[in-house]
């Protein structure tokens, strides 16, 4: 069986995008973890134990605690988007697993409608970039385009879920084929091809864009450090060398 040009392009695109995303993120994470944090700078009040820090970070990751303190509108839209995205991503696992894990089936209906939360959240965040003078001032072209990209991904996906269905059986064969290095034809449905193309593009720019906020949060010294400087001496390697001169 010979494969169409479209299939070859999409297969190649996803391999490259996945590779760039994984290698880029691994590089960034290794770089962050190797860069020393020479001083204890948690924003206080801060936990005095490691487990306290895990709890603080969990609150930041799950409920966006600091953002909640800052601004309820950004919090509502930001959280709706991220929570919606999470459910949508979990639902999409069905295209990558055979048999489909039972809990992915449970998420299926929620994941479908979560796409509305996701797009509403994104639309709200985008509206702020026009309506609030302070946010308008700080917005760069890439800030707008990132929201446009995510909304286009969400809307094209919703079109296929709710309006013009695509051949998801064939789509699953395509992705399972990619995973086992046995490339199968991609369904030549224009909306699907747009959706997949945008997703691949998002994966490609992940490690060189502001999407780095995702790994960045875990390395943020103001959030991940323990407040115990009187009890424990904290010295970076380059700073410890100064002690030897005394």
């Amino acid at each position: 069986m010979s494969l169409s040009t479209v299939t070859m392009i999409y297969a190649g695109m996803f391999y490259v995008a996945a590779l760039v995303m994984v290698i880029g993120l691994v590089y960034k994470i290794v770089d962050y973890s190797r860069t020393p944090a020479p001083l204890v700078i948690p924003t206080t009040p801060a936990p005095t134990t490691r487990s306290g820090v895990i709890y603080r970070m969990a609150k930041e990751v799950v409920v966006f605690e600091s953002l909640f303190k800052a601004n309820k509108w950004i919090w509502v839209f930001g959280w709706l988007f991220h929570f919606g995205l999470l459910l949508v991503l979990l639902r999409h696992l069905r295209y990558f697993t055979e048999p489909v894990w039972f809990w992915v089936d449970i998420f299926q209906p929620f994941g479908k409608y979560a796409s509305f939360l996701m797009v509403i959240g994104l639309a709200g965040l985008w509206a702020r970039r026009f309506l609030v003078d302070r946010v308008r001032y700080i917005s760069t072209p890439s800030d707008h385009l990132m929201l446009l990209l995510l909304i286009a991904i969400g809307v094209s996906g919703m079109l296929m879920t709710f309006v013009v269905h695509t051949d998801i059986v064939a789509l699953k064969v395509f992705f399972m084929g990619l995973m086992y290095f046995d490339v199968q034809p991609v369904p030549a449905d224009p909306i699907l091809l747009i959706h997949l193309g945008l997703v691949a593009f998002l994966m490609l720019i992940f490690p060189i864009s502001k999407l780095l906020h995702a790994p960045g949060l875990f390395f943020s010294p103001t959030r991940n450090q323990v407040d115990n400087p009187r009890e424990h001496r904290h010295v970076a390697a380059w700073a410890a060398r100064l002690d030897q001169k005394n």
Partner: protein
Amino acid sequence: MAVAKFDIPEMKDDIEIPKLREGAMSHIKSFPAPEKVQDFMGYPHELGEDWKERAIDKMGELLGKYRSLKVFLDACVHCGACTDKCHYYLGTSDPKNMPVARQDLMRQVYRRYFTTAGKLFPKLVGAKDLTQDILGDWYNYYHQCSECRRCSVYCPYGIDTAEITMAGREILNHVGMGQKYSNEILGKVQKIGNNLGLPGPALIDTLEGLEEDIEADTGVAVKIPLDVKGAEVLFITPSADYFAEPHVESLMGYAKVFHAAGISWTMSSHASEAGNFGLFNGNYETMRAVAMRIRDAALELGCKRIVVGECGHAWRVAYSFWNTLTGIGYGADDPFSVELQKQLDHNYPQPQHICELTNDLIKSGKIKVDPSLNDDLVVTYHDSCNVARASRMGTEPGGQFIIPRELIKSVVNNYHDMADGTIGEATFCCGGGGGVLTDDLLEVRVKGALPRATALNNVVKEHKVNFMAMICAICKAQFTKVLPMYGFDMSMVGGVHQLVSKAIKLEKAE
């Protein structure tokens, strides 16, 4: 050089978020450090031919040394959560005083020289070549930041603009654009021992005068010892405490506390300064050199405890950094630290804040106080930024809010907090911290004090508050100068130990 006239902002009923006015503060320029000041610090005093290369090299070096800088420059998504959190933005409406915009002054250059996206598509991601104009913006707006960290409380990724400001000032110093105020002080503290450049003999004179004042006032011979070997406590306080008003009232308060508790103590002429402006400039080596004076003094005088007076950023450096920089603290097994740990009394936290010490003494009954002696006052408390958001007191998180309030309430009968959202971790900076407390930045200071002045005005109207207590020398100096411009009386400003000083009973408790 005369400073241009400007309007004092009008206090409204509430703290309002202004519409932005581009360029509203672009005329501000803190006085540059002259040649001999820069020389002493090892910095050039003018832009050389290779300034751009030096600036980018320095940025690269800092990115390799500080994870905070690297992560913070990458992680921002321009969500806008911080845009209305800075007192300088609230007071000036200049958009470059929004924390994210202040960061972006550096982020645009970082993206251009250090990121793939910025090298390939600069316009798209807002990346820019470093120019003298941008350097000018850095000098201007990195001296309109008091490094108070209020923005870092609200950022979903914990981005702390103070870290960016510090890096910005460090780079500026390395290309010959130092600030006169901070760098002059860093020279004085290293050459003479304190930020005011007060030499040993003058200090002895001043302290003797204060002893006479206390005795004339109370009839008790309370001592303020200097350079006494073998004293139990080495006391480190900001040099403004020696003679500035109202600071000196707190110094007399500390002396009375040590006297009443029967604790032998001393100050040091070599380390006659708690303040450490090395923090403001973001230079680890300078901050370490300044902090090392305290370690030297402790070893020389053989003290078992180190206690720090009322100074906000000094307490940040002492609490958070002294152990790292000098080994004052516990938990290390390197020879450098072990030497000092042998000498320190492990029954006490090292270093200890004077509020921790005094509060413990009052609670345990070791000193007696009569709060009715402060009945003429209705008191509120201003949380200083570095104490609130960059340090702790006591053993529990948030002790830095509880302990000073407990202490105040034990020595006064009338106390009211200012509104939520303006105290605790959300406290507003006085407007003069972080190397801004200089007359060439008076406009920045006055406008930056607007949120605090508004919050204060509300408790004055509602509860007839007539005294705002604080534990920071910079806050005291800033407020006594700036609050009168908002119509408050200068005498409303004072230290927590000024209140202790009035209420304490000097006859020794049983």
